[in-house]
């Protein structure tokens, strides 16, 4: 029988290094996967991990993809630390895009500098409200937030499809299920000319710093950590489980909603059924890869975005199937969790006592 025993001694260094180790093992296992598909493994890994960094346009795309991942993952990390599992960030992302986008469409013939802030607020509130559904069900009736938040993703997807096929459809759009294009003052300003890098990236960086301060210097972060490591001590300290559950779900919902709005008002520029690209789910990987710490998450979002962009390139240059790229990305979380366990425990083979 195999058993796990806690490692004694200082595992601090080991635990800091696990994300790096996990990325390295993913590269090796990925190379084996691509080789078994008959592709040149070295070239595949080079295309995925190195090429995007050498090209200026790819570098800006890296930021465009990393920003929503980081924004969502930071929100999720608070809940994950406290033991509250919001798996439905994808749904809150969609609702944020919808409410923020609907605001833009409501003012399609009026422009002004106030419009983007208003859209951002509407997007964050939309995601917040969507996350309040599992929060209320959990605190009132003990419903499992994992299931509720996950199922609401599919509700949100269908709601988006319904709305862009109906009330929000572009009247001049030949019945395509798409909204109008947002006009200029409803679109995020571009940071670097000729790229899609928008101002949402800067806002994400600002929020990362604020989240870092909240987590490590503020009572809110203290309560989150306390609840995660000793729930009964938290209750003894006077931390209300109900309030914290609502706060964690609400915060992650609001940030996911904001990310959704940035996506709609940034690279996409309108509401389309294909808007959700899986950021909400990938952000879960990013949150753990970043050790549930805002600064770690910023780094992790860049790594994961790299595999996305590189993965796309590998798909059309090497004809690697999209499913293989998804497997490759999934391996990252798998190896992270596995390495994590092995960093904290040692495996021991025990003969069954009889």
């Amino acid at each position, binding site marked *: 029988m195999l058993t796990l025993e806690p490692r004694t001694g200082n595992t601090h260094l080991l635990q800091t290094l696990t994300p790096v180790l996990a990325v390295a093992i993913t590269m090796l296992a990925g190379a084996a996967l691509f080789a078994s598909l008959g592709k040149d493994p070295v070239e595949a890994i080079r295309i995925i991990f190195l090429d995007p960094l050498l090209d200026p346009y790819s570098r800006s795309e890296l930021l465009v993809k990393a920003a929503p991942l980081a924004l969502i993952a930071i929100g999720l990390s608070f809940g994950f630390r406290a033991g509250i599992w919001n798996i439905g960030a994808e749904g809150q992302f969609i609702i944020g895009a919808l409410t923020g986008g609907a605001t833009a469409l409501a003012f399609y013939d009026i422009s002004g500098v106030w419009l983007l802030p208003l859209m951002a607020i509407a997007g964050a509130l939309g995601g917040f409200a969507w996350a309040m559904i599992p929060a209320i069900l959990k605190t009132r009736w003990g419903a499992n937030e994992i299931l509720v938040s996950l199922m609401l993703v599919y509700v949100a997807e269908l709601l988006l499809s319904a709305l862009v096929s109906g009330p929000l459809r572009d009247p001049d759009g030949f019945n395509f299920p798409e909204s109008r294009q947002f006009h200029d003052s409803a679109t995020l300003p571009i940071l670097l000319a000729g790229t899609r890098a928008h101002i949402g990236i800067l806002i994400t960086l600002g929020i990362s710093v604020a989240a870092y301060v909240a987590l490590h210097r503020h009572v809110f972060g*203290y309560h989150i950590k*306390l609840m995660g490591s*000793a729930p009964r*001590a938290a209750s003894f*300290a*006077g931390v209300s489980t109900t309030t914290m559950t609502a706060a964690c779900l609400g915060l992650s919902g609001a940030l996911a909603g904001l990310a959704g709005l940035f996506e709609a008002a940034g690279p996409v520029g309108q509401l389309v059924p294909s808007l959700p690209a899986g950021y909400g789910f990938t952000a879960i990987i990013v949150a753990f890869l970043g050790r549930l710490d805002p600064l770690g998450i910023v780094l992790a979002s860049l790594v994961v975005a790299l595999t996305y962009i590189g993965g796309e390139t590998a798909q059309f240059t090497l004809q690697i199937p999209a499913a293989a790229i998804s497997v490759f990305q999934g391996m990252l979380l798998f190896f992270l969790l596995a390495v994590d366990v092995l960093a904290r425990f040692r495996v021991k083979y025990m003969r069954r006592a*009889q």
Partner: protein
Amino acid sequence: MSALLSIRGLTKAYPGVLANSDIRFEVAAGEIHAILGENGAGKSTLVKTIYGLVTPDHGEMYLDGKAFEPRGPQQARAAGVSMVFQHFSLFEALTVAENIALGMAKPPKAADLGRQIRDIANAYGLSVDPDRLVGELSAGERQRVEITRCLLQNPRILIMDEPTSVLTPQEVQTLFATLRRLSDQGVAILYISHKLDEIRSLCHHATILRSGRVVGACRPAEKTTRQLAEMMIGLELTRPLPRLFTPGEAVMTLRDLTVPAETPFGTTLKRINLSLRTGEVLGIAGVAGNGQDELMRVLSGETRVPRECMIFDGRQMGHRGPTYRRIAGLLSAPEERLGHAAAADMSLADNAFLTGRQRQRLAYRGFLRTTSTTNFARAIITRFDVRTPGTDTPARALSGGNLQKFVIGREILQRPKVLVVNQPTWGVDAHAAATIRTALRDLAANGTGVLIISQDLDELMEIADTFSVLESGTLTAPQRTGSLTIDEIGLMMGGSTQEAPNAVA
């Protein structure tokens, strides 16, 4: 009659506490043998050793004259020793038969097993239906499932750990009938309890433990409940003189506090009335599981009660949470150090912040004041001689006694109006215990009302001015310490329903 089980010189030490020291006794086939003692006397360690869950440091056990050294429960069961634990390990969503099959190395076919269960159950008057879901069964029925599970292995020794703590009086009678029938069939029963009346009516012999040692053996039926209580609690306890104290005004009052149990294993608090005055040390004695944890949670604010049930410093405060109470000056230290009073993985500084935030002003507009927090933690460490490398050390790394000094010191240094502590010196070495007791006395001398919930009678006799007993969720009227004889206290703690005589104070 030669002994079936013979225990010779069993010794087991844990860091800071000698759980069993040179334990000796013998049990004959068919004998119902009581292991009697207060909580912490070493009963659990002893039976866990016999059941193979604990390896002794010294000493031998013999079964039928042959050396018996079980390396785990499987070996103990194979040798014929079975145990029914106080808390059951049954899956509510499975049937009785499925639960029993889960514990077997090679379960027979479902139909065969069902028949075996019915046969055994009928033979011993257990009335167990193998097809019912465990979730639908009462505590007494679940216990019968556990007993049936043991009996299917044809045990020669059956260990029952506090079996009546979850039963109704009627269920207790059914259980006794079953145990007597087993005894007639030649099964020896080790019966762990501190309920004296039960032991007198059921057991043939009793071995009495105190502080990990055998302090007596007797035939319980030949002794009075009072004599048993004396043996259990110990006569070397001298009766201290009532301490001279001049209590001030009532600072905390509980009025007709009734709180239903939250879990099946919880205790309902029944119409508790209590008044704590400034400068008074009020001890609440009682065996664990009689409502101590529940009362503690009401006082700390973790369980909210109707506002008028609790009055603190002239204000109704039953509905207030821990934060509000701390600001008002009501501080507390729960029994469980790791996980409740302190977060194991967090540093001592973070743990100082846990309760010190409000009164020590360790946060400013929601932001942590790390320097103040570290200073506060350092003050606790210095004042209470907490042995630790520094304030960054996680709470988990401290020994029990050191962490307890930290946890109690954290509250004392905040100069409370009322301090409530549960088991302040549980598992703490003598030196640390003395430090804590002195600090609590000093606190009261400066006008704080101190409420101590403890199972340690010596401790309460040493530091309490007044004294009540919590038994089955009911609190007796307070007595001046020293106005009661030890055996009166023992009777109150042992579960005799008699009211405390001549309420004074």
